[in-house]
């Protein structure tokens, strides 16, 4: 399994043709207390860069973009009852949705963990 990162602070785990997407620990820290996550419906298809989800913190709503193109095959139902999972475990149990990847070549431009850490340090 490989993990990729975007400059929009999303992480993507790719296993076969399925990509699990979430927001990074840095992103949840910036957003603050998360009180609601609006997830896409299963079966929705996204082009890379489409609005895919919305994270509501106490203060504001933030869009989450589809980091790669694909079809939503599963969403994290646990976030419905416990949106704060994104704060407590952003990069594991706080995942958002799983995509069936339509164009694996889109992963090529993304960062690995070391590059993302460097990117965050530069902000």
């Amino acid at each position, binding site marked *: 399994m490989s993990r990729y990162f975007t400059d929009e602070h999303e992480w993507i785990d790719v296993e076969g043709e399925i990509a699990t997407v979430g927001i990074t620990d840095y992103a949840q820290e910036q957003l*603050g*207390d998360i*009180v*609601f996550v*609006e997830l896409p419906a299963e079966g929705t298809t996204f082009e890379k860069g489409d609005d895919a989800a*919305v994270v*509501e*913190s*106490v*203060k*504001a*709503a933030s869009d989450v973009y589809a980091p790669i193109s694909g079809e939503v095959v599963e969403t994290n139902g646990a976030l419905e009852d416990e*949106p704060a999972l994104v704060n407590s475990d952003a990069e594991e149990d706080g995942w958002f949705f799983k995509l069936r990847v339509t164009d694996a070549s889109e992963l090529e431009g993304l960062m690995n963990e070391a590059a993302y850490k460097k990117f965050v340090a530069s902000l």
Partner: protein
Amino acid sequence: MSGNDDIAHIEEELPLQDLPLDTWHRARGARMVGFAGYHMPIQYEGIMAEHGWVREHAGLFDVSHMGQLTFSGDGVDEALEYLLPSDIKGLKPFRQRYSMLLDEEGGILDDLMVSRLGAGAFDGADIYMVVNGATKYDDIGWMIEHLPDEVVMNHMDEQALLALQGPEAGEALASLIPETGDLVFMQSGLFTWRGVPLWISRSGYTGEDGFEISVPADSAALLADALCTLPQVKPIGLGARDSLRLEAGLPLYGHDLTPAVSTIGADLGFAIQKRRREEGGFIGHARVMKELADGPGSKRVGLKIEGRLPVREGAPIFADGIRVGEVTSGGFAPTVGAPIAMGWVSLPHSAIDTALEIEVRGKRVAATVAPMPFVPHRYRRKA
């Protein structure tokens, strides 16, 4: 583009200023944001935790961005009664009132606190006023225009303003200054702490008991340190200040109150005492009287939101598919444990329990007009 627009544009481009406690906030790990022209702390450990702390203990807020003004001179009461719809002549020394500045059409230019000074505070001035930070320079300009020459207004930009709020605020402040224990809601006094003069009122904007403390800027960090050393007190950011005041049903200027809305519609008629309504003689009186007789076109209301999806400022409100208003403040309410909002709706849809719908990202969320405050006030009133 008019000249005024040019000035507004230039003001927006000005770099953010630092307040007296800037270094103090940063040293305590605050996340700073631009607000009202200043760098201000939005949060320290997190809005939910800070909000909860204030409801259970006591929180220290830096509100030094707000404008602190004094007024003195012959005819100061008469002059202020022309500017403000509230009873100033009947305001006793050490007492405070909520009031507002109205324009000729009765639109709200700002909301504010006004007190009569005493004990020689602020060089023996007569009246003390606290106005909003984002509007203070406009307020000052407006008041200069409408005050007679005999009345002297002083903008005290060398004073910091701290708010200590929460059920343990009383015991916390009394441990530094025992005499503050006698103050009741909307009462003020001049106190001395380590040789520093402090003008303290028992008031605030969270719905909790608490104080607002005007302190010379060069002593602000010393006082903030002394307060935050107490076990009851933690520093609290602007984020929690906003969620606390929303739960308390208190309007925020620039959002819930603007020049486009009126006092009666805003449900702030309590700030206009009987004598002032009858006698008039203040800017905006005609609108107040007309709306008292005929009702306002729209009203500020509380909104209970079904489900967990927060509704935000700007979201349109519908009744039976027809647009009847707009959300002016909204978010997740930590103490309520659900999203709540404040908004303006047309009069026929403003009664408590009216079922409405609010549009969020193309979806309609069910909402109900709800009484405010959402969380009961716990002010310390006279026994």
